[in-house]
């Protein structure tokens, strides 16, 4: 089963929930897909055994073969290619803007002269490690790189379905999140009971419903703020899987990079219950289909 932990709003406690859930269970594969700002490793402190560089293919033009026909520019949907035609006695030029390239391969495949080949451009790295019985994988986007989805897709290739897979998702509701949660069996949305938390929760729920992924909510810092998140969940028939009260102990433990289940073992049972809740809802949903 693949369980992803997402949120809409940032800073609501995704990583806290994902990490503590993973540490409360056995034989987990933990995947941090927040490749822009990966944080789970700060808490899990895995022993990294292996590293792979992540690339996307970008075009390279063979100037000897290029006749500056402009076909590549015309087929590029991302405006990543400019062609300056040659004029009398002057050579033309084909310019590539690798930062705009999505690596779709259209230009190289459709060049009538076969003048474009693809070369790898590094966009980040994937690290693979272990912590006790847990397998740990995360991606790290290079600074200055704009597009995280290609890296997220490459990280997700490591998914091992013989284990329970827990995925820590990036915040928001756009392409990085969709790429991350796609194909999940269940998504846990972590929120806080404030107007910001509710606003972004509603957006995240809409996304997951569109993707047809089962979901449930964890309300973090449930005792500060107001009751509107709970009434929204009731109205929408969204299960509340767990409520975590605000505690200075959790906040300080988080700030030091220490998972709360390691500081206070009694939390383990709460996270095991969270897992059982998820399994229960998932089974019920499956039996209905």
């Amino acid at each position: 089963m693949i369980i992803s932990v997402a949120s809409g709003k940032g800073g609501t406690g995704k990583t806290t929930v994902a990490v503590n859930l993973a540490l409360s269970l056995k034989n987990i594969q933990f995947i941090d897909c927040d490749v822009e700002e990966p944080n789970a490793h700060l808490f899990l402190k895995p022993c990294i055994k292996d590293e792979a560089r992540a690339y996307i293919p970008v075009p390279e033009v063979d100037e000897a073969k290029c006749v500056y026909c402009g076909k590549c520019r015309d087929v590029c949907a991302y405006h990543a290619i400019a062609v300056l035609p040659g004029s009398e006695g002057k050579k033309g030029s084909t310019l590539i803007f690798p930062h705009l390239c999505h690596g779709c391969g259209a230009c190289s495949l459709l060049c009538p002269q076969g003048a474009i080949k693809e070369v790898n451009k590094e966009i980040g790295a994937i690290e693979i490690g272990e912590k006790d019985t847990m397998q740990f994988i995360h991606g790290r986007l290079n600074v200055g790189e704009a597009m995280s989805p290609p890296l997220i897709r490459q990280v997700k290739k490591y998914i091992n379905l013989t284990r329970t897979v827990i995925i820590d998702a990036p915040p928001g509701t756009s392409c990085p999140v969709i790429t991350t949660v796609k194909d999940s069996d269940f998504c846990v949305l972590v929120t806080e009971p404030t107007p910001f938390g509710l606003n972004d929760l509603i957006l995240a729920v809409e996304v997951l419903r569109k993707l047809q992924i089962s979901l449930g909510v964890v309300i973090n810092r449930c005792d500060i703020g107001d009751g509107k998140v709970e009434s929204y969940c009731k109205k929408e028939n969204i299960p509340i899987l767990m409520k975590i009260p605000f505690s200075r102990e959790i906040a300080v433990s988080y700030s030091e990079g220490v998972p709360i289940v390691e500081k206070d073992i009694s939390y383990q049972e709460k996270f095991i219950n969270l897992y059982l809740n998820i399994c229960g809802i998932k089974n019920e949903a499956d039996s209905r289909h």
Partner: protein
Amino acid sequence: MKQIVVISGKGGTGKTVVSGSFAALAKNKIMVDCDVDAADLHLLLHPAVKERHEFRSGQTAVIDKKLCTKCGKCASACRFQAIKDDFTVECFSCEGCALCSHICPHGAIHMEENVAGEWFVSDTEYGPFVHAKLGIAEENSGKLVAKIRQIAKELAEKQTLDYVIIDGPPGIGCPVIASLSGVDCALIVTEPTLSGLHDARRVMEVAKHFNISVKLVVNKYDLNTAVTEKIEAFCRERDVPVVGKIAFDKAVVEALVEGKTIVEYAACLAADEVKNIWERLR
């Protein structure tokens, strides 16, 4: 005219609380919410929408079942696994590259433009406000950010405003880069946690990569003073001025629940410090 963006790397550190307060403190400015896929600033500014525009961006492939012979050429060429086994397009995966439409031997695939969201120009009691809503499960948030920034800048020039104040998105990817480009100053709001430091450091590197001047604020600094000191030392090393430290204050959440900016909600330590920060920044 000065453009100031509030960013953080890590989400939930207090960007919108800070930029919302700037709306109440700064005179003669326009506000912009560039966190287009999880926009929250409108919950503090209570805009009256004056103009509403469709945001068209990107394309999605559509396969005509009558012409399709299921030869499979499109599926094997697509790098985004967007062609499903039944030869329909999985629209969440389609990146709109149009390669399939070019290579289909039967001309069965055409591209349709996406309506990827909406953007608005609004009036608020704090002045003009430009904001947007990315469509559910849509892409191209970076382009939508660039669009509303351009609109805000034009309005600011036309009305000879002094400031464009931008509430930025979390992360370091395309919407952040689009929020940063060409600003006069990026204010990083972080928190005294190892994650906060880790993420602030990465977004600081992004700002440096694009040659943007950076200042930093530590929010809830007293939750862990040892990590706050670490962040301050880190900033000293890099010549990044720390322009404020906001104490943890339950009034901040109370203000949120009331839909008010902290500087208007209550006279408290957090409100005083946010005022100081604005004075140091302007």
